[in-house]
Each structure stands twice: as C-alpha cells, then as structure tokens.
C-alpha cells in the first residue's frame, strides 16, 4: 500500500518496520513529528526526554541493552547531545542505534543554519541522507541493519524540505528484531583511557570498512543520461537538481554523505567534461572532492546561504533564465510571526517593556517578545542561555545593572537546560531574577508534554516536577507565582524582585491559549469611553489595530482573553459575551 507521508513520518515508519524498540527525543522543528509519529505504534517505548543529551543517552543505553533504538533532534539539538555521541562512536552498539538529525537551511524555525554533516566526520559516525519520504523510510531501515553490521551508530540527516514534504511511501510489515542478550563487556563499553585507546583503533578500521561499503553500495547511485555534464549531489539538492536538469546531466546521487566514495567520485569526474557539486549550506562534498584531486565546481557559483531552488540551479548550470512572472508594483508589508491572540507571554512582555528592563531571552514562542511593538527581548542564543548569560551580564556590569535585568525562560526550556544556570546563580552568589514562563506545555513545537506538565508523551498521568520545590532545593529563597494577565500585580512583583539583593524566581503562570483546556469566552470590544490613548496598541495583539485613527478589535481574531481589558487605563474595553 502506498501512502502520502511526511519525511518525518516516513522515518518513524522506517524505524517501526526495522523493529525499533526505544525512541527518546526532545522536540525541535523540523524534527518533532518523527517522535510524535512513533507514539502511534504501541510496540515502541517512546519518551520526550528533558533535553537532547538525555535523549541520546537513553537511546544509547537501550542499544547497549540489546534493543534497536533511535533519538531524533533538530540540528542545534545535536550540539547539546554531542558529548555522548562522540564517545558512543568508540563503544559501538548492541542493538542498532540511529540518531536522526534535521537541519534547517533557510532557518524557517531556528537560530542558526549549521550543517550537521560536519558532525559525521568529526565523530567518525557514518551518515545517510534521504531526499524524499520513500528514501526516508528505506534509509532508516538500512541504517539500523548497517549499524549492527559495522558496530557503529548511524546518522540520518534530514533538512526542512525533506522533513516537511509529503511524498509517496510503500508501507511494509514490521521486522522481528529480537532483543539481543545482554552481555557485560567492559573493554567495549567502559571508555576509560586504556579501553578507549583500543576502541579508537577499531574506529579507524571501521572507517576503512565503511569507505569500502560506500564504494560498492548502490546507495551511492550513478544515473547515466549520456551527458557531458556531471552533477554530484545528495538529499534535497538532488531533487532540485533533477527538477532543473532532468536528463541534461548525469548524476552521482550520494545516499551516504559520510564517508564518501573516493574512487566512485574520481571515476565520475574523469568521465565528464564539467562536474558540479550541488549541496545546500557548506561545501562538505566539494571539499572532499577537491581533497582527492577531483576538479569540480561548487560554491564558486552556488551560495552558502539558505535553500536552493530548481531555477537557481538551471541558471547556474545551463545559463537559462527563470520564467517570466509578474509582481506587485509597490512594497508589500512583511508578515512576521507574532504571539497568538490570548498568548500568556504578552502580559509578561508588556510589563517588562513598561519597566524598561534588559531581558535575557531564550528559545521558544517567547522569542517573539523581541518583535515590535513589544520589542522587549535583548538576547537569544540557545536553550538555557537566558539564565546563565544574565549571570555573566550581571557579573560584568555590577549590582545596579542587575536591578534592570531579568531572564525569561519557558517551563520546558527551563527543564531542558535552565536549571544548571540557576544553580550557577545560587552557587556563585548572583542576585539575578529569573522569570519562568510557565504556560503548561512546550508551545513552539506544537504542544509536547514535558516534565512539568504531569503527562507523558502518550498522555498518561505521571509525577510532575514542582517548579517551586525545585527552585527552593537549588537554594532560591524568593519564589513568587504570578499571573501575567494581572498586569498590575505582575508589575509590582517584578519591581520588588529585581530590587532585591538576593536571587529570585518569578513563575509567570498562565496556560498557552491554544491548549484545548483553555476556554476563553466572548470577545473584547471598545466602548465610547475610549480616549484613543492607544495603550492597548502596545500589547501587539493581532486582533487590535487602528482604523481611521480609532482603535478597533477584530472579532474574528479576538479570543476574549481580556488582557486588553486589564491594561486599558479608562475601562473602555469590555468583554462582550457571544453565543
């Protein structure tokens, strides 16, 4: 049976068919749906881990325990889990072990555009790169088998357009991959120097075996169309190149992007007059080609930035112009993402902006607190940095600056890597104020549960991390829970806590407006008490705008959250109940 599947769903299907038993991940666009799809298979143990490092270690443990196991993450998540990854390369695996990493060329939903293929070479872990959903499934299955054959973890590398495109996939039955017997094996699994020295020898031998595999396997496929032009490519770039050039070029499509097949590449280059390497982001394949003496054209004509398109390739390789098109004769306003109507973060940032504080920000929906008119967030680096970077700022600039400084971090992000920063504040005598934006869910990636929600990935009730007790245990003595929609009180709390000469935590508690359990009713409307002061416009609510110099509320966008009612100094906004 053929089915239209997202690349991510196809990876999940491949893992299922390969008999995977354990999948542990942390959500991150564009990888999230892989693990969400895994949950649909009852045979598989799945979890949202607190962060990617923990997730990778759970998968590693499961593999050592004899099961086929997988961990999925976005590109920056691979940075978080790099530590165990580099060493499990040495230990090798018990059951097949796959790390599926999704890059985001064009940064649709990311803070950088790193190319994860560098990790494969650095960690000496082979990497497969599918170019459509069908290959997503096949390559994932293959990766599990090869992982066991070569005693190595495998990377699957995706990119946004592979992860989030649907194409046809042939579904098969689940293989029986029995749990292997557990065997204690100290030289293989205890990586102290004496053992690791020997395992490094094994890793280098394994690399040689994998290089031979890359030469002989048809995962690196030749496509001969009798052309003088040759194209070496992989992943989504293959689809673009094929669309652009069709049968006007020969292709060497690399399904395995590390290690690369030296001889196959040299033969291909020799057989063609001109050879292009077409790859998004960094010149990984190109650099390899040049290092083995292959004369290829790559980043001289193709950009290092963002996503490619077929027309871009057609222009670069064939010199053909793009098709004619019409466009607007005037500037079109951009439409950046904004916090939803009813978003609890809006109340928080309204207050922080009003108080003129420096805001050390983090990764989540609340990064949108940097967008006008709130424009409150000062920094966004990576998960958890809001807390630790604020300590650094305070240490650099002193006590007075610290009284104008707060960190903001979501509940899930706090569990991910904010706690260690908070420990640092207490341990090293910082006086920072950290605001935990507790919206009862992991919002940005589309509502995943986390250790603070009291539910597992399967929605089962579980113990809930108590943020108050946790902060107390770390040594924070001033913890206040406040509703960010009660703006008067919230402002008072923030003022008090930043003034304090001791560290403090404010838990800004109000659930995400998109949660099914959140039911705001009615719509907000402007009454004739309005004096047109436009304080409500400072909220940056998508439902409130100015038409003919009068503030109006768009009833189709308003969800009746009532935050504007709370900020209006003249009581001119009222909730109207609707049927």
């Amino acid at each position, binding site marked *: 049976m053929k089915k239209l599947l997202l690349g991510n769903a196809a990876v999940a299907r491949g893992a299922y068919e390969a008999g995977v038993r354990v999948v542990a991940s942390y959500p991150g666009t564009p990888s999230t749906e892989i693990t969400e799809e895994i949950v649909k298979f009852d045979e598989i143990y799945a979890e949202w881990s607190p962060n990617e490092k923990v997730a990778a270690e759970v998968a590693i443990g499961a593999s050592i325990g004899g099961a086929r196991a997988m961990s999925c993450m976005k590109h920056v998540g691979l940075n978080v889990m790099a530590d165990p990854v580099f060493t499990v390369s040495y230990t090798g695996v018990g059951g097949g072990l796959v790390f599926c990493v999704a890059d985001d060329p064009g940064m649709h*939903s990311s803070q950088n555009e790193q190319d994860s293929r560098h990790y494969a070479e650095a960690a000496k872990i082979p990497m497969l790169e599918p170019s459509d959903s069908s290959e997503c499934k096949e390559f994932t299955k293959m990766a599990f088998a090869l992982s066991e054959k070569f005693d190595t973890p495998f990377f699957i590398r995706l990119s946004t357009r592979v992860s989030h495109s649907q194409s046809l996939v042939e579904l098969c039955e689940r293989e029986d991959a029995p749990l292997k017997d557990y065997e204690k094996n100290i030289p293989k699994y205890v990586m102290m120097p004496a053992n690791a020295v020997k395992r490094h020898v094994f890793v280098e031998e394994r690399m040689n075996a994998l290089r031979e595999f890359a030469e002989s396997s048809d995962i690196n496929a030749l496509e001969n169309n009798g052309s003088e032009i040759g194209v070496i490519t992989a992943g989504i770039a293959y689809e*673009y190149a094929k669309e652009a050039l069709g049968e006007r070029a020969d292709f060497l499509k690399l399904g395995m992007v590390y290690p690369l097949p030296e001889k196959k590449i040299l033969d291909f280059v020799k057989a063609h007059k001109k050879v292009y390497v077409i790859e998004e982001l960094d010149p990984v394949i190109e650099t390899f080609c040049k290092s083995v003496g292959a004369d290829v054209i790559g980043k001289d004509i193709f950009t290092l930035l963002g996503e490619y398109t077929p027309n871009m390739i057609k222009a670069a390789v064939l010199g053909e112009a*793009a098709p004619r098109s019409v466009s607007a004769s005037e500037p079109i306003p951009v*439409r950046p993402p904004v916090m939803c109507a009813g978003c609890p973060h809006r109340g928080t940032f309204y207050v922080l902006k009003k108080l003129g504080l420096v805001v050390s920000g983090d990764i989540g929906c609340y990064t949108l607190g940097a967008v006008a008119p709130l424009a409150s967030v000062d920094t966004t680096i990576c998960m958890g940095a809001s807390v630790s970077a604020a300590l650094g700022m305070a240490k650099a600039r002193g006590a007075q600056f610290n009284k104008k400084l707060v960190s903001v971090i979501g509940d899930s992000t706090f569990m991910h890597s904010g706690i260690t920063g908070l420990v640092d504040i207490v341990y090293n005598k910082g006086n920072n104020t950290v605001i935990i934006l507790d919206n009862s869910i992991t919002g940005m990636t589309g509502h995943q549960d986390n250790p603070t929600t009291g539910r597992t990935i399967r929605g089962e009730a579980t113990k809930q991390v108590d943020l108050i007790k946790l902060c107390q245990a770390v040594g924070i003595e001033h913890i206040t829970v406040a509703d960010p929609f009660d703006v008067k009180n919230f402002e008072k709390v923030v003022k008090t806590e930043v003034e304090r000469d001791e560290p403090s935590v404010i838990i800004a508690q109000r659930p995400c407006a998109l949660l099914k359990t959140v039911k705001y009713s009615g719509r907000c409307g402007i009454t004739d008490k309005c004096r047109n002061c436009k304080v409500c416009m400072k909220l940056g609510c998508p439902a409130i705008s100015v038409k003919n110099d009068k503030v109006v509320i*768009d009833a189709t966008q308003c969800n009746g959250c009532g935050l504007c009612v709370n900020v209006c100094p003249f009581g001119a906004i009222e909730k109207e109940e609707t049927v």
Partner: protein
Amino acid sequence: MTKNIMIVGVGGQGTLLASRILGNTLIREGFDVKVSEVHGMSQRGGSVVTYVRYGDKVYSPIIDKGDADIILAFELLEAYRALPYLKEGGKILINNQKMDPMPVITGAAIYPENIEDKISAVANATVIDALMLAKKAGTTKAVNVVLIGLMARESDIPYEKWVETVKTTVPEKFLEVNLRAFDLGYNS
C-alpha cells in the same frame, strides 16, 4: 507534465487541512504527489506557504517563481505577495479577507489598497468572500473548506472525487457543515 498548486495564507487559517485534502484527492487519481509545508515558528500568525505538485513523476517539492499553475490565497495581502510565483496564464483564486500584519498594526507599514483590482489587472484572478460563505455554511472555521471547493471547481478532477476525500479527511461531527462549505465554494 507536472502541475503546480500553491496555497498561501496566514498561520492559523487552516491551510494544512486544505493541502491534505488536495494531496489525498490527487493520490486517489493515481498521480505522483509532493506536498511541502511549513511548520513551527512561522505558523504563529506569519505568512505560510504550501506547495502541492503532481504529475507522472515529481522531483522538487517546492515551486519556483513563475511556475504556479494555480495559487489559492486565503488572504488578500498574501495573494499579492505570492503573485510572482504565478505562471503566465496561471490562475489565482483569492479570498478577499484582510488580516493586518504586525508592521501594519504598529503603523510601520501600510496595507496596500485595492489589491483585488491590481492583481486582476495583470493576472487571471477570481475573488470570493469565503468568510461570508463559511458563515453561511454554519461556521467561520470552514473558510479553508470553502476555498478548497473553489479550487476543486477550477481543477480537472470530478466533483464526486473531491467530496469523497472531504468525507475521509474531516472528522465525522464536522462533516455536514464542511460539505455545505465545500459546495458553497464550488458554486461560488
């Protein structure tokens, strides 16, 4: 020959359901299909674009400028933004709903006037009031299905095939209102 359909709108308008119905209908017709969506941050009230491509064999999941046979626009400004993607001789189907983006709300930019006329002057455009039709069907939430109905009319796939997919894609309890919405779009 590969056909290209682009669905554009604002995050939260239900473009993903539209592309799902479209994709499933095309598979039933035996085409090779690729649907490229946008998830994550840009869904939060930002511009969203979905590409649907079908034919004997489809490679690229994305559509380039000047290559779209049909653009289905859920919002006026997004229709205007997507215009350069329209192929010469292609059709653009537009919902006349206006949603101010944040730069317009804050006064940093101006929402262009008379977009319908400007697009119609340079392209083959059909403009409908899908919000009104959705209300008529019974819920403002069915705007996306009204628009799918409109697109179905412009396609070379028979009416019954579309209805079949709507029936299998939409939850049972919302089926009746969605079928009404589909018909109102189809006959608009």
